């Protein structure tokens, strides 16, 4: 296997496989992440895309931003469509009937809604069947394409258009963010990781690793959405960094069941640094913020325990 720790700014591929001129909002970190993934995977990959912002902003006929083969069928089935593409390329290559005999990476990509809610069944099916593909969830923590409605990936305390904070209900979203990373890992697939375009080389390394791992890989990519999070577009990258620095969105990977932090900090920032710039958390009072801090600390501790367990096992 190639050395994976190679990505550095000057070594990153120059070529673009996602064209500019698409219709994403200013400061959209989803498209930023996608561009980095596309650079990493290069020429020989095929995408099955779910309905959502990413599909809408890149594929308004007759203008496509995709320089790689791309198919969109529906909202909840990207994992199933990708399964089909993977199975077909494999069988046609075996029969000598596919026009390309190089290894082709198959990628399913969807938003959080298309992954953790409506697409969960198709995702679980694809992971369980063991297709050699990468599933990437671009998590902007709500249904952005349809106007910022809640998903089960929306964090506790965030307002969305269907989890508004009001007089009778001052909190906003009542439920804790669904832990889809653990759900993916529970399928015993060889590679699971979290990633963020605010840490581009970490993201690119993970994508490369996922592509080189035979079998299914799941990458959960945290993509700040200035429009839906009600914040200035120029904050998209920095808020992604703060999410990691405040333990809100830790960067780690699970390789064959072993947990490993890929980005660590000696000191962590308080969650208020993360919550404050975002309009979706503006209504929260001190008690609620403290509660969120406790939740964040707790789930980070839980994660660290798993990392420690893995270190012991590996020793």
């Amino acid at each position: 296997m190639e050395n994976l720790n190679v990505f550095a700014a000057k070594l990153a591929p120059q070529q673009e496989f996602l064209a500019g001129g698409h219709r994403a909002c200013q400061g959209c970190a989803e498209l930023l992440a996608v561009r980095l993934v596309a650079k990493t995977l290069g020429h020989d990959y095929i995408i099955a895309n779910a309905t959502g912002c990413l599909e809408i902003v890149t594929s308004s006929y007759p203008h496509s931003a995709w320089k790689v083969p791309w198919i969109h069928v529906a909202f909840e089935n990207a994992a199933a469509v990708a399964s089909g593409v993977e199975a077909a390329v494999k069988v046609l290559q075996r029969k000598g009937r596919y026009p390309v005999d190089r290894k082709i990476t198959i990628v399913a990509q969807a938003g959080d809604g298309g992954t953790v809610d409506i697409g969960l069944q198709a995702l679980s099916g694809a992971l369980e069947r063991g297709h050699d593909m990468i599933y990437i969830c671009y998590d902007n923590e709500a249904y952005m394409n349809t106007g910022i409605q809640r998903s089960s990936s929306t964090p506790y305390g965030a307002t969305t258009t269907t989890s508004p904070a009001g007089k009778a209900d001052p909190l906003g979203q009542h439920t804790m963010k669904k832990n889809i990373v653990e759900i993916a890992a529970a399928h015993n697939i060889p590679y699971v990781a979290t990633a963020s375009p605010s840490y581009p080389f970490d993201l690119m390394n993970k994508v490369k690793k996922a592509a080189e791992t035979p079998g299914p890989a799941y990458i959960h990519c945290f993509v700040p959405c200035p429009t839906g999070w009600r914040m200035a577009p120029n904050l998209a990258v920095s808020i992604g960094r703060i999410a990691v620095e405040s333990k809100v969105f830790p960067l780690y990977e699970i390789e064959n069941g072993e947990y490993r932090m890929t980005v660590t900090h000696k000191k962590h920032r308080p969650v208020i640094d993360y919550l404050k710039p975002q309009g979706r958390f503006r209504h929260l009072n001190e008690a609620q913020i403290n509660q969120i801090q406790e939740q964040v600390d707790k789930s980070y501790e839980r994660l660290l325990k798993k990392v420690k367990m893995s270190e012991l096992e590996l020793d």
Partner: protein
Amino acid sequence: MAKRVGIEVSLAISEAVKQAKVDAIAAYPITPQTHIVEHLSELVADAELDAAFIPVESEHSAMSVCAGTAAAGARTYTATSSQGLALMNEILYIIPALRLPIVMTIANRALSGPISIWNDHSDIMGARDTGWIAIFAENGQEAYDLTLQSFKIAEDHRVLLPISVNIDGFTLSHVIEPHEFIDQQEVDAFLPEYKPAVQLNPDQPVSMGMVGIPEVYAEAKKCQDEVLKNSEAVVKEVFREFGEKFGRHYQVVESYRAEGAETLLLTMGSVSETAMEAIDRLQDVEKRSVGLVRLRLWRPFPSADLLKAVTGCKTLAVLDRAVSFGSPGGPVASEVRSTLYGVDGAPYIASFIAGLGGRDITIADFISIVDQAESMAESNENHQYKMIGVRE
């Protein structure tokens, strides 16, 4: 000539799929479709068929996986029934829009509720407007023949549309019938390897399934309907070639002892065989002027051929095996009425619904349908539809 083999119709269909050398199969089990895909998975496991068999977690994913395999250039097959077809419904619409020539057997079964595993046509009627070519088989031999022909029709570059081959659940799927199988070399000569028009391929990247803004959506839909309508000519072409090669002749609209008949029955699917017996009795014993017309092609609707087949009769009794709730007639009858509307000398059209959820339709039922239709025609009775054999 190939010899005749007694085999369950579901297995005969699987053999056709094997002989078509499909590349990919994705399916989810549902009665009465199960025997088809069980047999196919055996054929794959035994290396008799070199294909990817993808045992998905739902029919929605079955059709979605098929979209992926077909878009990547694989000859693709699936099968389902009833609730499974309903669950696929969202994706069914997208397949023809993407011009993916998937072949699907539908072992027709009633839709819930109440839940019923038995045969009628409510499942395919729910998928009527999805843009698939829909063909009906009346017996096992037809199911086998039409399955083979479907790949050729669907994959023709003038068509590139999905096809459903409809077989009545249980009454066809689970019976053992004699089948004449075609030799593999002859199948290969008739059905060459699938050559996709476009496919997902990094050396020639395409974007499939893009957003249709208002400036292009209507054109896309009009194109789709034109292609579907034009596919009728290819269906006929393939039927003709098949007939010439193998001696079994198919028409989009079939007639049985219909020449000069004053009253015609119109049926679809395996009940046509019972209807033929009723016609024999009516003509030979009762000396009545009654014939039979069977629709083989349901979509695209073969208006011109239907018109030709019924011209000259006085009364046309249309049998439906599904209810179109709130509609002024059975789904087939409504199409027939609109085809014949305003046509000079058009017959009186009586709409009957029978055989829901596995209820038998007997020879006596057909005779009663003819009797009723003739007396309704006599008085020019204004009606929506009549249900046969229902306790009221």
